[in-house]
């Protein structure tokens, strides 16, 4: 493995990887374009490269794409990639307070740490963790998703009722389309373009990018989105790093685990990590107002899914998300089909994948700290009348290129209008997005599980992983209430003592 690393660093592969990371960062930083798109577009460019150089380029684009999303999330409140949505919650308030440099620095370091942590787990535990993931049946998936849904409570803001309306709207939108189990059409209203359902990526771009464009139109009298400021204090202090250690560890583990589960991915991970960081914080009310720990959680979590998603791909030949599916396509072009015997049959290529994740994370760190923090904020600080139309143009091109579908562009636009309405009435959008991402998977697994158990919910309470998630869910639901009661009791006690 060390020989392979040396070879990677001394051959032309490193140059291709730098180009891949740079392209990924640009795609990540532009709202609407994504890591998936960067990888997919680069595949034809790797035809003429060696297998090592090709895979290094694609993984570079993957790492860069996931990491680049933080820049626009912080600078203009529009996540560059869906996996950076939670970064906007605290990153943008920090930029508004004149701490854009700090927010960017925290995001970059956290992205780096998340990737490296996932690399360690990828190298050490890939085969073992894949076996664990394979034991996940429908009921375990339902349990994991139910646990994820508890984030709705924390991310509902001041009104849980509004959060529930938003979450159930998301679940209802998942009803639209072709039922994946029986093939029946449901809630399509006879419209052909709705047969495929509401695709969550265009919906997310609509909810967070197009809706934000509308919000910015309302403040068009302010020339810029964030006030003019110098990008300083980019590096995290020793104290900040020390304070963030539990958050780094927690968010990395959550991100890796979510990355392993097929079909869930980085978008969900950044919400769950943010939610857990807020729950664990001694100062949860500061989240959403510019607490750098929110940026740490989101960016560590989404980058940790990189190694996580590669684990089932390398060990079992199962893609964890859309990007790894594209990566598998790239590997197949080189005659190396990932599968259970991949690590044994292609040891050199496996090592290249492992090492590429590590090297790409360092390349990303260097490029972002030396170039990215200077160039991207300057570009994103264009006057609103220039930036907003340009962002919409790129966002719609990005939506179209997800599936080359015109109907998805229309979905993005409609969801943008819905997102704007939710903003106007102060309804949280995050619960809707969480349920929209996972609603379909939950329904499929719940119904499939019930079919297998002939209608019995008993396996949900008897299978070890499933019951573990149910306990987590119960704890996540009850702990905040217990904490609230305790705090009220404490406040009452201190008041009586004063009297």
């Amino acid at each position: 493995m060390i020989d392979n690393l040396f070879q990677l660093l001394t051959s032309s592969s490193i140059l291709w990887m730098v180009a891949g990371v740079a392209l990924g960062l640009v795609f990540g930083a532009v709202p609407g374009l994504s890591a998936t798109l960067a990888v997919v577009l680069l595949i034809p460019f790797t035809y003429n490269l060696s297998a090592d150089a090709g895979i290094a380029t694609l993984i570079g684009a993957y790492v860069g794409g996931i990491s680049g999303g933080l820049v626009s999330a912080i600078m203009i409140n529009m996540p560059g990639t869906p996996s950076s949505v939670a970064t906007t919650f605290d990153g943008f308030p920090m930029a508004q307070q004149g701490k854009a440099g700090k927010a960017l620095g925290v995001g970059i370091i956290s992205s780096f740490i998340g990737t490296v942590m996932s690399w360690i787990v990828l190298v050490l535990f890939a085969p073992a963790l894949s076996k664990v993931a394979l034991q996940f049946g429908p009921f375990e998936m339902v349990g994991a998703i139910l646990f994820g849904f508890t984030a709705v409570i924390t991310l509902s803001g001041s009104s849980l009722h509004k959060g529930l309306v938003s979450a159930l709207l998301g679940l209802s939108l998942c009803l639209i389309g072709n039922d994946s189990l029986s093939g029946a059409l449901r809630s399509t209203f006879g419209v052909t373009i709705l047969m495929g359902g509401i695709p969550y990526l265009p919906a997310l771009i609509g909810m967070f990018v197009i809706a934000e464009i509308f919000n910015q139109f309302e403040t068009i009298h302010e020339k810029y989105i964030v006030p003019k400021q110098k990008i300083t204090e980019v590096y995290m202090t020793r104290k900040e790093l020390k304070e963030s250690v539990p958050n780094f560890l927690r968010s990395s583990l959550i991100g890796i685990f979510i990355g392993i589960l097929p079909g869930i991915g980085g978008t969900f991970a950044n919400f769950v990590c943010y939610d857990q960081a807020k729950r664990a914080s001694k100062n949860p009310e500061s989240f959403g107002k510019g607490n750098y720990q929110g940026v740490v959680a989101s960016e560590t979590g989404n980058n940790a899914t990189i190694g996580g998603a590669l684990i089932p791909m390398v060990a079992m030949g199962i893609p964890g998300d859309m990007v790894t599916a594209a990566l598998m396509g790239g590997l197949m072009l080189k005659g190396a089909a990932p599968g259970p015997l991949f690590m044994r049959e292609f040891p050199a290529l496996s090592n290249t994948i492992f090492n590429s994740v590590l090297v790409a994370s360092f390349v990303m760190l260097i490029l972002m700290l030396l170039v990215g923090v200077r160039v991207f904020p300057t570009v994103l600080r264009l006057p609103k009348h220039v930036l907003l139309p340009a962002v919409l143009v790129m966002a719609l091109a990005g939506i179209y290129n997800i599936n080359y579908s015109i109907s998805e562009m229309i979905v993005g636009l409609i969801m943008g209008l819905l997102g704007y309405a939710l903003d106007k009435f102060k309804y949280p959008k995050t619960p809707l997005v969480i349920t929209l991402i996972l609603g379909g998977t939950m329904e499929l697994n719940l119904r499939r599980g019930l079919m297998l158990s002939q209608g019995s919910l008993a396996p949900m309470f008897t299978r070890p992983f499933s019951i573990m998630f149910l306990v987590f869910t119960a704890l996540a639901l009850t702990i905040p209430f217990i904490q609230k009661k305790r705090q009220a009791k404490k406040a009452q006690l201190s008041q009586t003592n004063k009297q």
Partner: protein
Amino acid sequence: MSLRKAESYFLIFLLVVAGVFIYTSSITKVTIKEPVTARAYGLVISSLFLLTVLTRFISINTKAYKEKDKSGIFKIDHPRIVLISTIAMIVYTLGIIWVGYYVMTFLYTFGMMMLLREDRTTKAWIVTAIGCLIFTVALYWVFTMFNVYLPNAWLI
């Protein structure tokens, strides 16, 4: 209009949406025998949605809530710009499909930039037109280099 009242109208809209989901779920054809069918699941979720929206609607329209309500006034700043931008976005999206991505991009960016600009001098018109042309050409170059697919339309 108060924000509470505006929210009530929004909730009425959501109630209609929930009703439509209940109806469309109820007419879903069941093709295979299973414990929870697509129809049953749809009915449960859409009914829960309807119930949640309804309770919210009732709760914000109680006398006690109205008396305590401090949500403020519902307003849209720069409504003219928001309305024109919405129409422009829809026209742009449809234009991409029928006219062509690059032609529409030039027209849309130029139109929007001029709408959002404070100064509309002759110099501003010329500078914006040149800027939009450079932006469109740059996009064409980048998208062609990376084989970014765009809808087939009448023009480019």
